[in-house]
């Protein structure tokens, strides 16, 4: 994960310093963008969402109490905003029925440098992918994921297991 930023920038940003917020943006943009893209698997949507995420982060900075690492708080807020915004978007629902292979191709055509595993993650079905990203990459508990996605804990665990098995098979074929 990203190294923790100077706490001074976090403090300055919470007091309304846009320059400090800009430094935080550049420090975290790749991680935030990676999380958003892996959750939505749509480059165009990720481009929109990442801007929305940072604008809302600016507005929510006052709620950061310093009880956890800034990066931990940042990624949780990002996940919250991202999942909420995605629910609002009609095209998000349209994606549920679309062919996931097309999604991966769409991302590849966007000229992004992605690892082999990232490309495979984007091929996973929607909910399976979200569970996998949040648990395996973000370290979130199944309880937290279940709350976010509105599913049972058992479903979250099953989806994670399904994702692992699929990825293992796909990696073997690559």
């Amino acid at each position, binding site marked *: 994960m*990203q190294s923790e930023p100077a706490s001074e920038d976090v403090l300055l940003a919470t007091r*309304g310093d846009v320059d400090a917020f*800009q430094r935080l943006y550049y420090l975290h943009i790749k991680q935030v963008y990676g999380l958003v893209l892996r959750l939505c698997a749509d480059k165009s949507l990720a481009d929109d969402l990442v801007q929305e995420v940072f*604008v809302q982060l600016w507005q929510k900075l006052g709620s950061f109490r310093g009880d956890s690492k800034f990066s931990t708080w940042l990624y949780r807020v990002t996940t919250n905003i991202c999942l909420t915004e995605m629910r609002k978007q009609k095209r998000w629902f349209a994606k549920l029925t679309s062919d996931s292979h097309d999604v991966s191709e769409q991302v590849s055509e966007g000229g992004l*440098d992605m690892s082999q*595993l990232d490309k495979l993650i984007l091929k996973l079905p929607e909910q399976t992918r979200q569970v996998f990203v949040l648990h395996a990459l973000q370290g979130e508990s199944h309880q937290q994921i279940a709350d976010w996605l509105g599913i049972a804990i058992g479903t979250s665990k099953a989806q994670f297991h399904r994702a692992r098995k699929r990825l293992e098979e796909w990696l073997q074929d690559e």
Partner: protein
Amino acid sequence: MSDNEKAQKLDRQLELIKQQGIDPKREFWSAIESRVNRSKRYQRTGKSFWYGAIAASIAITTFMAGWQLSVLQAPENPVTGYYLLAERMNAEQQVQLHGMRVGYETAGYSQINGNTEEQLTQLALARQEITESLRETSGDPNLLELLRWVNEQELKLLNQSYTLTQSVQEI
């Protein structure tokens, strides 16, 4: 490849991507900065609005208290020129408000949600109280000035709510 080897391969790759995000290959900061600065301006305007609204409320309360005392001494309160002028100002205000709403909505703008309607209601109530005071007293030019200020704030607030919404949509 055994199941164990497959799992280990996945775990190795997972560790690698945990360390790195994805480069968006696009610059988002300027758009974000623009929205952040606009939200700062809006917050300042919001604060100014409430300071003004509080000041107006105090002025109205003070005036009403003074008016109630004067009413005891003056049995008759004829309709004054101030009240007639206030009525005319209010009629013109309604035309402007309606025109502004129709204009924005025809152009495809929508009004921002949140507390804008609540603030507009507060201003409309303030206008009603001031006008009522003007009707029931012999007239006070300060009240007329207060009415002009309330109407002005109302137009500004309505204009701002539509402008903000459209800016957000554009980005």
